[in-house]
């Protein structure tokens, strides 16, 4: 097993410890493993857990997910979408054909239906694009690293993690990290709660800014 790069990452605090130890984690990952997109053309995305062996591996075992003090696995997303430019081109082609055959343009409703038909036809021909990101969980430190700063992927991580482990992830942004670092220091904690933002330059004394560099 090779841990992919965490050159870009976001850190989270985990709200508690998982029940059932490593075996319990394996069982929960199995239940929420990645399942590829099926024939339903309405479904544009699929999300789920994978091992870090490769994109297709969803056979979880303790030795595949345990790395020293860390539990490691991946979040995979498949996305299937008809290219917008191609949808527009096919719609236009059929609109022109309809105009030539009937002498009239499509009504707005007919055009919407045509667009949906075209999209469905094209989606069936499109291969999904697959992405995955590493998840590293240090249970002892109640800390988790996720290998992307993508907002959508992070939102999905938090939701799927909650669903899988019944634990909450709190992103260690500035406020949460300050609270974590100052935990136990009641005086500092109270001061933190009263803080207001600092403006280093008073609004009235700001010079106008020239064009960006």
């Amino acid at each position, binding site marked *: 097993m090779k*841990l992919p790069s*965490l050159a870009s990452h976001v850190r989270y605090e985990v709200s508690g410890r998982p029940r059932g130890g490593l075996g319990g984690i394996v069982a929960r990952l199995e239940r929420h493993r990645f399942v590829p997109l099926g024939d339903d053309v309405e479904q544009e995305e699929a999300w789920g857990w994978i091992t870090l062996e490769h994109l297709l591996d969803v056979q979880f075992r303790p030795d595949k997910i345990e790395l020293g003090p860390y539990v490691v696995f991946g979040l995979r997303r498949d996305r299937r979408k008809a290219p917008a430019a191609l949808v527009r081109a096919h719609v236009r082609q059929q609109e022109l054909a309809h105009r030539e055959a009937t002498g009239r343009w499509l009504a707005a409703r007919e055009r919407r239906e045509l667009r949906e038909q075209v999209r469905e036809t094209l989606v069936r021909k499109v291969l999904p694009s697959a992405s995955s990101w590493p998840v590293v969980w240090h249970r002892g430190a109640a800390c988790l690293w996720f290998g992307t700063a993508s907002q959508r992927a992070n939102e999905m991580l938090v939701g799927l993690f909650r669903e899988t482990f019944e634990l909450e992830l709190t992103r260690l*942004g500035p406020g*949460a*990290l300050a609270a974590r670092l100052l935990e136990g220091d009641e005086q500092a904690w109270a001061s933190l709660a009263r803080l207001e933002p600092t403006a*280093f*330059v008073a609004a009235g004394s700001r010079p106008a*800014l020239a064009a960006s560099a």
Partner: protein
Amino acid sequence: MAGHAVEQLDFLGREFLTWLWFRCEVDGGLFPLEQGELGVVLGDYVKLVAPGDEHGEHTVRRESPHRSRAARAALRAGRQVAAVRLEMALGEQSFSATIDADGFAVRSAKLPPVEGADERERSQERMERVEELDDLLDALFARFLSVRLSPAWEAEERPAIEAWIEQGGAAD
């Protein structure tokens, strides 16, 4: 402190990176930490934004961008540091990363090399390097917090930062 309450303190991220820039210039970027003396230099990327105007961002990509006139002018116009690339040295070890102020995302980190005998060992070492980087950033942030939460912030540090911004530093 509830989750929504701590998020209201996320303004500390921009203040922290602005303070770090200031401290790097006035102290030469040396920070005595529990891990040892950390040397910090601002790298080749800085992004500044105006509070309440996220579209008015100002990005400078060049060697020592913090010394550019454009970056200093953005600071004087009231913009704060939203992201910055940091180059750090701790003893023989070098770390570099771009830090986002708002969510503390780390991007494009470069970490000290690993030497494990097999892939499993190297993977674990890589993760330990990531933790070391985050520990250094936490230690810098904790230093900022100790000043930010003390009476010295209003009495000394904040006026000094305001004066530094007003003077424009050693812009090229």
